[in-house]
């Protein structure tokens, strides 16, 4: 089942609705990379609130997504990692180094907002 991707201004919001297979995750990765280019997005939010397991493949793929999106000129924010999932990831030794993680969608949008203002300020200065 494809993940719905919403466009909000210059941000894309990928809202995962159900458990994903490996193939689904890879599709999401490619879809996001393509759309970031098409819409010239500056930010991508990936909402993983619904995912009850983030294993090694998921964390690798998320890191890869963030990197690909960065290469396309945008910033990625992962939102909604559940406490139990955070706990298990750490036990498993997984890391999301280099990827911004925040609590929820509201935080994610606020973060991208700040980044946008910083960009504008930098460009203006």
């Amino acid at each position: 089942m494809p993940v719905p991707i919403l466009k909000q201004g210059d941000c894309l919001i990928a809202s995962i609705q159900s458990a994903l297979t490996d193939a689904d995750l890879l599709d999401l990765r490619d879809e996001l990379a393509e759309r970031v280019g098409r819409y010239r997005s500056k930010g991508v939010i990936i909402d993983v609130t619904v995912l009850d397991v983030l294993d090694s493949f998921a964390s690798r793929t998320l890191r890869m997504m963030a990197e690909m999106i960065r290469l396309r000129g945008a910033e990625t924010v992962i939102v909604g990692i559940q406490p139990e999932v955070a706990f298990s990831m750490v036990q498993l030794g997984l890391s999301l180094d280099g990827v911004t993680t925040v609590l929820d969608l509201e935080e994610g949008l606020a973060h991208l907002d700040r980044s946008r203002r910083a960009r504008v300020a930098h460009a203006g200065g």
Partner: protein
Amino acid sequence: MPVDDVCVVIRSDADLVAARSMGRSLAERYGFGTTDVTMIATAISELARNILKYAHEGEIVLETVERDSRGGVSVVARDDGPGIADVGLAMQDGFSTADSLGLGLPGTRRLMDEFEIVSSPGSGTVITAIKWLR
């Protein structure tokens, strides 16, 4: 509390989702808390993933177990794949991390309470992991 044991055949990545889901369901019904349920499901995901990657086919057997009046869930990951040549090495922390392209066994072991590997080249692999109710 009687809970059904289940065996999930692992042949495609859709089966990974099924195995995780069955594991979650079994653990929840047996009375594990949310964090433990997630740990079990994550361990299942890793073990099933290894089967898929190295043996292409295998099975995950989920059972409830009892020992010394303690109850728990056991996850057995079985395959007829190439086997692990050096289990000791594979279990060494830092050598084969979940993030790398290795087996991720030390991390998986940390998610569970007991962990045993039976494997050698040409004889397939059986990994048994148990988590006990607190």
